[in-house]
């Protein structure tokens, strides 16, 4: 497998990002190889969501320096939908409600054309994620926290991105739902791409609870707009829960 992964899937180099003229990211470097799942830890307001939204290409996140390469292509000039079609997917923390657009329709468009087997996939997703009551409702309209996350997971399992970004997949979700969401994340990340290693992921988590269900290969702490340390995600969380972020970024287990 490694021979096919000469080129890492995602390479972020010296990335500076501003929102409303305020600098949020100040020189982020991150490389995600095929088949790797990375975990992004860090206190609120230090740039985790900004990093994800910048990769996705949401307007308002201005890259002032550095670049993001995906499959060897610089993403700078690409629209959100072009990035999605290249293989980048995101599970939003709080996805917006869209009046009149049904979850079913979103799953259909995410599946894309020409892949076939839509009905089976849909039935499978409805069953696995317990969506029978949601599938024909306006997407996210009045959905509970857990319902919104399950709906996001269904859309991503239809889209099957090569790199999936998960923004706080456990926030606002009760324990039962975390298990369902975790299972779906595993299904997505472990599924094989023809001729490639398994898919890659970048999981933003504030609490780390989702790691009880999903295995992360490499953890990072995003602190003050920079990746301050790198290590085994579980070790990092242990460290953080003992000493807090401030001490963690100075500690010895860090590889960075």
């Amino acid at each position: 497998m490694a021979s096919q992964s000469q080129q890492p899937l995602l390479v972020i180099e010296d990335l500076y990002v501003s929102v409303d003229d305020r600098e949020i990211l100040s020189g982020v470097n991150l490389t995600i190889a095929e088949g790797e799942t990375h975990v992004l830890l860090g206190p609120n307001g230090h740039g985790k969501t900004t990093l994800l939204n910048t990769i996705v290409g949401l307007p308002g996140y201005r890259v002032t320096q550095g670049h993001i390469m995906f499959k060897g292509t610089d993403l700078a000039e690409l629209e959100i939908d072009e990035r999605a079609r290249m293989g980048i997917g995101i599970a939003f923390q709080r996805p917006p409600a869209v009046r009149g657009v049904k979850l079913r329709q979103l799953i259909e468009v995410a599946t894309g054309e020409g892949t076939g087997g839509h009905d089976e996939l849909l039935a499978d997703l409805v069953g696995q994620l317990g969506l029978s009551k949601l599938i024909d409702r306006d997407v996210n309209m009045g959905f509970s926290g857990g319902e919104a996350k399950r709906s996001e997971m269904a859309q991503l399992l239809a889209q099957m991105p090569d790199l999936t970004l998960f923004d706080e997949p456990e926030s606002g979700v009760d324990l039962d739902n975390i298990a369902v969401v975790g299972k779906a994340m595993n299904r997505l990340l472990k599924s094989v791409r023809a001729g490639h290693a398994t898919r890659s992921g970048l999981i933003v988590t504030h609490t780390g609870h989702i790691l009880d269900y999903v295995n992360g290969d490499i953890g990072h702490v995003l602190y003050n707009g920079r990746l301050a340390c790198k290590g085994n995600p579980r070790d990092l969380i242990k460290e953080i829960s003992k000493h807090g972020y401030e001490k963690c970024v100075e500690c010895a287990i860090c590889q960075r």
Partner: protein
Amino acid sequence: MSAIEERKAEIARLAQAAVAKPATFGPDLDLTQFNAAEDVKSVESLESLDKQVKETALDIGFDTTEKGRSGSYFQMDRSPIYRKVEEMFDNKLEIMSTEEALVMYPELMYEKYYWRNVAPDKDKYTAQVALGHTEGYFIRVKAGQKIDKPIQACLFVSENNISQNVHSVIILEEGAEASVLTGCTIHPKVRNGLHAGISEFYVGKGAKLTFTMIHNWSEDFHVRPRTGVTVEEDGVYVSNYVMLKPVRSLQTFPSARLVGDRSRAVFNSIVYGLNDSYVDIGSEAILEGTGTRSEATARTVSRDRSTVYSRGRLIGKNNDCKAHLDCRGIVFSEESTQWAIPDLASVGAPGAELSHEAAISPIAAEEVFYLMSRGVPKTEAISMITRGFLNVDIPGLPPALRRQIDRALEQTAKDAM
């Protein structure tokens, strides 16, 4: 003079006095600019109509094969050229032209139905219809009959610059149920003209009428429908109105009087303002009986240089009545104007509960980006959201009508791309 003659004279007198009376809303038109319609020959079968006519009719939901319909009425210009009731509904449903009904049931018509829900002197448009040669459909569903397939009617304008005057009457006797799909449209060659249509609907005790109207005009055409409805005890009136194509000016403000206890009126309107269209639509519910209810939902989109008014009036006259109005609009162009005008009144009824939600806002960028993040290109995402916005959930809408509306929305979304 007989009572009927007296009533005829009265209608004429009232109309005569209103020939120059402008309507309350909408641009005032000079009616002398339009020619009178000529007679058109009847047809034995709808299949014999010219292909372009059939296709145009299908766009507004009128299926010339008559598949899945209980009955059909086709009027071209001023002439009712075709009418038919499917055999299985023979003794349950009557369809004829209004002129024929006036001949067949003069007492009934003049005493109870003809010009009773709409006043001949309301404005110059009602006056013109009252004074000119007019046809229209007369549809009556007999007591207790439930017509489970839609009745379809098409009011078609085939000549340029004429005034099509129409006067239609629908009567649902006690306990009857029916859905009527009326499509109004013009031949593709027609550029300008006027459609002045009077509709008087009578929903009897425990009866239910679903009336769906699809309008399809052209950029220089003027439209002035005038609709009055009365609903008796436990009766239900559901109105669905869809207008997705350009028009020069269109103004309509149908009014439903809920006279019977526990009667109900529901209005759903979907309007797409394009090019230089001037569209002024609304609905009025007058809640007179005890336990009466009404809901009005309007969705309006305006593009280009269009002007769209969305009005909704609720008048509570009973201490036990409840009504809600929900109008939302999206403005797509800096040259377009939209008005949302909710208008609520409690008249001597301190117990009346009337409420409204009105909003005009752009498509949320956040929603567009959300769809794009699933790989949908931006223009397609906007079109999906717009279609969703207009795609009002209409409970109880017959599937055949749902498909017609979906088709029209689909087509409009494609055209707008």
